[in-house]
């Protein structure tokens, strides 16, 4: 036992049916530091944290927290001991208010459990004030965007006043601005002596915020290093076990005629007068702050929430799209931003999740060609390096990043002419990220028209031939690859500078 450490996890092993998720893993976190936990998708990061908070019991191993051995049998116990967690999978209670969600299980109350409603709201307001978050405590969770939901989760974890806060990919669903905000919060927490375990796939966050980093690979402990002494390449090698060429191979692709043109699309309260064009072989990025309406535009074009007015042309012909089925018929595909809500079929196998859009292709006279399905899924699963014991594994048992990969596989299999990708690399590790970028480039090369919405500016800048910027439901600008810089995009996205061109 060491007094410097707030947490020591020693020789932790955990096996699931078919998967050894953790094999003799250790993790030691110093008091008042931010400790990064890194590794590829499926390395076992979330599992280790779930063991710490008491969701899973380890098969073997020891946990020493704050000087005493932690026997966590229930989550309540961990929370009481001073550990809280921001979970990777957002899990709000949709029909309850923000305040009720945050203080669930800890409502201020009189005798007989009578809840002090006013105080509940007041406490939430104060918490938000302190964290400078602007969300109505009385709003229903179901009315919030993903980003706001994420902010509520962050606020919730902090509200426990814990000694140790686990943050499992807290920045995967929020934009730069909120990330900075979160970092500010983390720094002040650190000053109060709070320790933080920080899981991320974003390399640059490491230097910005963390003190030390522990790397897992394949369920095994690889090592712990000081954050400022390790280079990006070294870190990647620890994670992946090899050197990784991390450069995007953005190739020159000849951009041809327009495949999709959107004209004056309006949806009351969501966005107005959106026009843009995507051409064959072109990758168009849409940038904007959270809530700027990017997702709504994609959903509208794709027929999920059809627009109130405006026109859509596909290959020069006017298209009527009232439902996703129509959109798919016009050769479109959409990877949605909320994988759990609108993407995954949790009770089904990885394979069944991949083939949903394309079943028709495999059906001959109603019957399915199992062999072909198997082959195609296997090919994609290898191409995307989906970590799963088999294609028949239920997708709910996969790690977050691997679930995301399976969803990407679904749309790759469909091979659409026009592909919309809403936050395509959410929760995806560095190695796989560059694989996916290369896949996107390959698609462009094959003459597909691609639209990418991303909150990661480097991603947008690296991928796009052209960048559309939105602010407050309006298109505030369109930048060519050459014109685009982080600063320029931020200007347009915050609405500080309204351009005349458009």
């Amino acid at each position, binding site marked *: 036992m060491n007094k410097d450490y707030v947490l020591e996890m020693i020789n932790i092993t955990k096996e699931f049916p078919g998967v050894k998720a953790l094999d003799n893993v250790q993790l030691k976190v110093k008091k008042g530091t931010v400790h990064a936990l890194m590794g590829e998708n499926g390395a076992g990061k979330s599992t280790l944290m779930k063991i710490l908070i008491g969701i899973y019991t380890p098969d073997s191993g020891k946990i020493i927290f704050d000087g005493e051995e932690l026997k966590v049998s229930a989550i309540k116990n961990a929370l009481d001991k001073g550990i809280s967690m921001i979970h990777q999978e957002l899990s709000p209670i949709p029909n309850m208010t923000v305040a009720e969600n945050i203080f669930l299980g800890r409502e201020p109350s009189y005798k007989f459990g009578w*809840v002090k409603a006013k105080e509940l709201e007041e406490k939430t307001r104060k918490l938000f004030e302190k964290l400078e978050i602007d969300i109505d405590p009385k709003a229903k969770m179901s009315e919030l965007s993903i980003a706001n939901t994420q902010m509520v989760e962050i606020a919730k974890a902090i509200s426990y006043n814990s000694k140790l806060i686990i943050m499992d990919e807290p920045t995967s669903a929020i934009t730069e601005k909120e990330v900075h905000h979160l970092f500010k919060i983390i720094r002040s927490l650190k000053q109060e002596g709070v320790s933080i375990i920080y899981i991320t796939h974003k390399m640059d966050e490491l230097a910005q915020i963390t003190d030390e980093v522990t790397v897992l690979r394949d369920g095994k402990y690889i090592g712990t290093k000081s954050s400022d002494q390790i280079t990006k390449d070294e870190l990647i090698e620890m994670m992946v076990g090899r050197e990784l060429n991390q450069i995007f191979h953005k190739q020159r692709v000849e951009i041809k005629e327009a495949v999709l043109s959107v004209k004056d699309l309006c949806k009351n309260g969501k966005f107005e007068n959106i026009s843009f064009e995507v051409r064959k072989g072109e990758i168009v990025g849409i940038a904007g702050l959270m809530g700027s309406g990017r997702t709504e535009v994609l959903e509208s074009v794709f027929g999920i929430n059809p627009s109130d007015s405006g026109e859509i042309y596909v290959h020069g012909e006017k298209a009527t799209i009232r439902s996703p089925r129509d959109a798919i018929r016009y050769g479109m595909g959409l990877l949605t931003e909320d994988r759990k809500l609108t993407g995954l079929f949790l009770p089904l196998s990885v394979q069944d999740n991949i083939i949903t859009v394309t079943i028709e292709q495999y059906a001959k006279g109603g019957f399915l060609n199992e062999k072909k399905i198997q082959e195609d899924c296997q090919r994609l699963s290898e191409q995307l390096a989906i970590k799963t014991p088999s294609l028949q594994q239920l997708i709910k048992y996969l790690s977050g990043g691997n679930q995301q990969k399976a969803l990407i596989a679904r749309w790759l299999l469909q091979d659409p002419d026009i592909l919309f990708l809403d936050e395509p690399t959410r929760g995806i590790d560095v190695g796989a990220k560059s694989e996916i970028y290369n896949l996107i480039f390959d698609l462009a090369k094959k003459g597909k028209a691609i639209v990418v919405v991303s909150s990661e500016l480097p991603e947008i800048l690296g991928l796009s031939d052209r960048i559309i910027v939105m602010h407050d439901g309006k298109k505030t600008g369109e930048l060519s690859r050459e014109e685009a810089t982080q600063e320029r995009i931020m200007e347009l996205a915050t609405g*500080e500078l309204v351009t005349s061109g458009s």
Partner: protein
Amino acid sequence: MNSQVSIVNKQEKSKSAVSSKERVSRILHKYGMLMILIALIILMSFLSPTFFTTGNLLNIVRQMSVVGIVAIGVTIVIITTGIDLSSGSVIALVSVVAASFAHPDTYPFFVPILIGLGLGLLTGVINGTIISKAKIAPFIVTLGMMTAARGAALLFSDGRPIGNLSDSFKFIGQGAVFGIPVPIIIFAFVGVVSYILLNKTKFGKYVYAIGGNEQAAIIAGVNVDKYKIFVYGYAGLLSGLAGIILTSRISSGQPTAGVMYELDAIAAAVIGGTSLAGGIGTIGGTIVGALIIGVMNNGLDLLNVSPYWQQILKGVIITVAVFIDSRKNRKS
């Protein structure tokens, strides 16, 4: 910081922009079924001159009080994504057991009441414990209880009704205070208590949380098992209460009582807006749902609609009512 402000503005703006429209929608959403109930009452009043009299209206509420009380318990169960199929059989079991302690000059009237309530509670706690601890689907557990409790009721009474009940016991079902029948008073009381429980207490928050997202509730450290046992226990308790009222009202413990009451109760809850997917439902809605069923039953009897046609019409009315309600929500 400017950007922050702009976002705030947008939210504020959009909030006020829709507020009046939204308010109407909220009201319709919240009170849609109530309006359908009122429409049904107006319709029936036109069709039958005896329908809209104090006597008949009290009559309807009294008749629905047994199913209504059960429906309130079932509503809470359904909010947690559960189901309770055992209510009707528990009514029968409580009915015969309570009746056997309610003969004149044996025990004071509160003995059969306490025994009945205790028995109802017990069945509910058994349901809840098996559901939460053994993690078996509520449908199966309460179906098992439905079958078993009916068997137990028949066994206990040897299949026969148990009569000769004391007058003080009969007061629960047949008496009136200030002209209001006791069952209605109990029904109202249960409604108010359950409303408070569900809306003002931690228990209520946890019920909605468990139904809205059980995983999230577990992660927040809510003792989900305990609250599930509470919830089924409460439903069992209310079934017991319903059994006592019914027994007292018909002056007889009946092993065959309550057949299909669980379906009526679930229907009342669902008509009243409770979602079988969990997380959504209100006591007020369920009471309205129960009254819609009551008005329909009473009205069709008053109009002398042939029983065969009654069944057909009931099926249609329920579907149409829910349909109209869903339309209203969508349009506004």
